[in-house]
């Protein structure tokens, strides 16, 4: 279809560049900072199909299937491991809710099952069994290395001819009628421009700024950056907390052992609206708050040392579902992932590449559900199940 420009060098932009190049498209990608620098590399590495609505369950079931084949396809180590997600119920009502979710997940082929706490303890040897009644366990959920995954996609994309530029900021879009015809960019204080046939806004937390460059309202796809933080311990012996373990009733607190070095990553839904899109400063209330939950989930953690704390953005839409589709005749958006961009990327990138190159996709992605114009119409979806 000619030249396609992608704005944003996170996992969504880079994976979509790869999928488009695979379809034979000519792609140029712009990242204003360095690759991965937005939200991708700050994520907690988790990948799950345990959602609570049909659209997200189907999308993530397909995405996990893509993840399973990704290492082979990209010919690069991405450290994808299916070590499961274990949700823990703290009340009878929650057990009933788990049962309903499991039934829905099973209907679409996701093999989650309700397990007793004795079994959970076998899966997570340092688990505190006392506060929990039952677990929702999907052994097919997992984790991967965000840096390796992005660079694996990037390497393959470049092999296929993608012109991927970092430290190159898009500063303007020229629009004629319902089409974007030129992208203006700046690198090393030099400004350049390029004629394009289509543009993808894959800039997640920064997406409203790009939409404004396209002459659209910044509120058309309302995305707000929330600061979400993580704390990580020193490397511990493998096998202590391989799955992501989360009692949703405890402010979505979770722990997961890093697939690379065995340090325990601790998260929780203690969030702060970002003061600006540069505000990734960690906070002390989070550090203490998240660790209080972590030691209640796994008491031996109190003897570990905290090595790092960092923050990144959940680029949230009002219903916490991303916006994926056309905004103008040749201007597309894939943003507002609300904390789920990394896990969804393999599926969403393939779907978006099909939409842009051929106008359709066979990926099980509910285009109505993720329609970016739903906010303007006031048709919010049920909230995507979000943790941390």
């Amino acid at each position: 279809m000619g030249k396609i420009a992608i704005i944003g060098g996170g996992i969504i932009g880079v994976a979509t560049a790869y999928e488009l190049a695979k379809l034979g498209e000519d792609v140029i990608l712009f990242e204003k900072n360095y690759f991965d620098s937005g939200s991708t590399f700050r994520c907690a590495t988790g990948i799950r199909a345990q959602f609570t609505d049909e659209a997200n369950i189907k999308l993530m079931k397909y995405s996990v299937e893509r993840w399973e084949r990704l290492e082979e396809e990209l010919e690069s180590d991405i450290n994808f491991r299916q070590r499961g997600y274990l949700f823990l119920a703290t009340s009878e009502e929650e057990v009933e809710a788990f049962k309903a979710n499991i039934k829905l997940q099973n209907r679409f082929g996701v093999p989650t099952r309700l397990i007793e706490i004795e079994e959970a303890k076998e899966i997570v040897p340092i688990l505190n069994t006392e506060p929990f009644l039952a677990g929702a366990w999907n052994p097919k959920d997992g984790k991967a290395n965000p840096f390796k995954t992005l660079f694996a996609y990037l390497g393959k994309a470049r092999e296929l001819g993608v012109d991927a530029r970092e430290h190159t900021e898009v500063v303007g879009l020229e629009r004629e009628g319902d089409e974007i015809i030129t992208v203006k960019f700046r690198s090393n204080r030099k400004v350049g421009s390029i004629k394009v046939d289509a543009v993808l806004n894959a800039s997640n937390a920064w997406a409203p700024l790009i939409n404004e460059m396209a002459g659209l309202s910044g509120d058309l796809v309302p995305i707000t950056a929330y600061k979400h933080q993580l704390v990580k311990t020193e490397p511990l012996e493998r096998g202590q907390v391989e799955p992501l373990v989360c009692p949703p009733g405890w402010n979505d607190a979770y722990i997961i052992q890093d697939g690379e070095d065995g340090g325990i990553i601790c998260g929780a839904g203690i969030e702060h609206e970002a003061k600006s899109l540069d505000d990734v400063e960690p906070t002390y209330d989070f550090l203490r708050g998240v660790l209080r939950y972590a030691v209640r989930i796994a008491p031996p953690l109190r003897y570990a040392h905290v090595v790092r704390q960092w923050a990144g953005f959940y680029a949230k839409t009002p219903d916490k579902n991303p916006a994926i589709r056309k905004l103008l005749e040749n201007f597309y958006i894939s943003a507002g992932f609300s904390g789920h961009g990394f896990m969804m990327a393999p599926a969403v990138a393939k779907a978006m590449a099909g939409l842009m190159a051929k106008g359709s996709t066979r990926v099980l992605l509910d285009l109505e559900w993720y329609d970016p114009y739903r906010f303007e119409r006031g048709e919010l979806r049920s909230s995507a199940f979000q943790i941390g």
Partner: protein
Amino acid sequence: MEGKKIVCRCNDVTAEEVEALIDSGITDIEEVKRLLRIGMGPCQGRTCIPIVISILARKTGRKPEEIPLPKAKVPIRPVRVEVLVGGGDG
């Protein structure tokens, strides 16, 4: 690890690995850091970052002072979880 030059003692990263990554075209220290996990261990980069900067400077023809330090993360030294969660309320 005999016969290898270790630049990062926390994560067992060798000089050869750093050089190979730079040779593959990755020259932003933030990316080198994340792909090799230098500066992400308990020492917070006190040992490895100056060495990596000098390798990067030599291989890319830049002056070491032109290469920005990666952002350090809190806590600057490891802190026992127990200290942060307090006594009886954990």
